[in-house]
């Protein structure tokens, strides 16, 4: 380890040095935090709503942040041909395809999920992505075949999932984003915010930022499968890449286990419609609608303290809405 973190917080400049990886700037505006107050929905609480839909309406805010570093890596290594293995990661597929179009890169997506009629995939195709559907067990063989075929034409291929940046980019992005959020939190006068998200990289990146800066930030992570030992492994791996040593306190992260029952999906839809119809906000159907569901359940059951400062992160991308023909 090159850097040992002392008890003192790192400055923002020091943090920028830690995450100094090749990057292509894709986001040129900050996303706002608006305050939601609604007695029926949130009792007497104020909800601070950070809307990642505001970054760019073609794509997902969360994925766009990751792709700043992934595109930086691709550009740095001078690849033009990309392969992405998707396990129903529709937000990443469509955002990546969009950016490949912009940056003159060729993208092939291997999708192991069955649902290829999804709007995200049609939009990915529109951006010029070549999409292959494959059972999971044949995906690797298919990737190798594509690589071999390209090698015959002396083309080298960047398999995104096999790059170290793939697992690191989201965490880097949200450590970086912590600087913007810290300034907004200060302006709002929040002392001990609790960030809600169902996106792992969002939680882990902001968590690491807060630990490096010694901030009193808390986190609520909604997930169907993640456990504290998984979080610890991910953080240690990220710190190793960042060549940084840090004592961290996982008690700052609260995990809520997502119930995957079908009935819940119907409730998610109701929340999506409620937010659109009363707040003019579109929640991301892949993750944010879930975290909002659990937040509202907790509020309804009086499990949130009156003075709790909830900062809800809407990860962005509304394309999924058009996939569900029965949404209304």
């Amino acid at each position, binding site marked *: 380890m090159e850097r040992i973190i002392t008890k003192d917080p790192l400055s923002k400049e020091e943090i920028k040095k830690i995450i100094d990886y090749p990057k292509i700037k894709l986001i*040129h*505006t900050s996303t706002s935090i608006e305050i939601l107050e609604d007695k029926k929905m949130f009792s007497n609480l104020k909800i601070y709503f950070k809307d990642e839909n*505001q970054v*760019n*309406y*073609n794509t997902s805010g969360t994925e766009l942040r990751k792709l700043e570093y992934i595109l930086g890596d691709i550009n740095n290594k001078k690849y033009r041909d990309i392969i992405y293995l998707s396990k129903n990661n529709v937000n990443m597929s469509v955002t990546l395809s*969009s*950016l490949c*179009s*912009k940056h*003159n890169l060729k993208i092939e997506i291997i999708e192991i999920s069955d649902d290829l009629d999804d*709007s995200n995939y*049609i*939009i990915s*195709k*529109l*951006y*010029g992505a070549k999409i292959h559907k494959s059972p999971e067990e044949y995906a690797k063989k298919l990737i190798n075949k594509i690589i071999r075929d390209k090698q015959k034409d002396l083309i080298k291929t960047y398999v995104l999932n096999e790059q170290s940046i793939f697992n690191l980019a989201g965490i880097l992005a949200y450590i970086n984003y912590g600087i913007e959020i810290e300034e907004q939190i200060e302006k709002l006068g929040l002392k001990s915010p609790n960030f809600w998200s169902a996106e792992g990289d969002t939680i882990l990146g902001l968590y690491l930022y807060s630990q490096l800066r010694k901030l009193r930030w808390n986190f609520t992570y909604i997930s169907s499968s993640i456990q504290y030992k998984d979080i610890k492994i991910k953080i240690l791996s990220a710190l190793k890449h960042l060549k940084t040593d840090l004592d961290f306190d996982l008690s700052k992260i609260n995990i809520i286990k997502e119930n995957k029952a079908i009935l819940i999906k119907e409730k998610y839809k109701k929340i*999506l*419609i409620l937010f*659109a*119809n*009363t*707040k*003019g*906000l*579109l929640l991301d159907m892949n993750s944010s609608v879930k975290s909002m569901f659990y937040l509202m359940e907790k509020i309804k059951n009086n499990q949130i303290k009156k003075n709790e400062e909830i900062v809800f992160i809407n990860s962005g991308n509304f*394309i999924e*809405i*058009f996939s569900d*023909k029965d*949404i*209304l």
Partner: protein
Amino acid sequence: MNTEKILKKYKTIPKYNLLNHITPLQNLDKIAKQFDLQNLYVKRDDLTNFLGGEEVRFYEYILPFIKSKNYNSILNVNDYHSNDGIVASMISKKNDLDYFLITKNAAHKHSSGNILISKLFSNEVHSLDEFWSSNIDDYIKRVISDLKKNNFNPILIHKNEEIIFLKSLAYINAAMELNAQFETKKIKKPYILCTLNESFLGLLLASKLFNYDWKFIGIQIESNINLEKMMEIIETKSKELFNIDIIFSSKDLEEKYDVSNDYGVLSEKNKQAILLASEKENILLNPLNDCKILSYVIENTKKLSDKNLIIINTGTNVSIYNYLQNLNL
């Protein structure tokens, strides 16, 4: 009146800030190269806030007007694939206004794309069949009467002369942005290509007010746009506001390209334009209007080859979801 005085007067018009950034002027160099065009740019007003599109600029000026007149709701009339229903309904919810939409020729249409989003954000969406669509004025009267009985005081956006003027005023800001972008990119004598509506007239108005050396090509996408009437309204109200005689005429347009027979239809050449823009330039063109501008450019490359062409992309991306299946991807 000199530029400074015009600007001073312009800044007195009440405005809400809904757009907190300058929309990019993107160089479509790959398409330009493919078709031997000297310069082809697009003003990305699809990247305004909310769900994008010209409506965000419009409502910066419409909202204060609505509030000042104590309306508590908005009533609009659109075709089922129109953009106002989605952006305005979203903006109105964020500004404590109720939103009611009457969509023509929408009965029995599947809720996808624009209608889906409109329904998500609106209080009510009235999807009319052919009969009521052709008797729209009667239907509007009935809706207004019902709304008033239920304590709503709606402003009718449709064909409202004040609103037509406010929308065109909103595009004076866009024109000033463009002018600065032209200076930065050293673009001389630009040809502005825009669908014929208030945005177009706002840009034309700005070019007259500030003596910009711009040429205009208007694309008429729907037949019920009464350009002459809108020009009259803007002339009269500009005189009242700026105390300047603004005279519009058909000579202001280098060309008027009429594709109104294809309104709401996605032709093969439109599909090609959409695919070209998305694959090569990372832009989702609106299938109803903006893709028709690019189609026009592609069809007329010879006469446009030495021009600095500026497409004004005023649509939102949502419309593409009306037509996903038609794209045969």
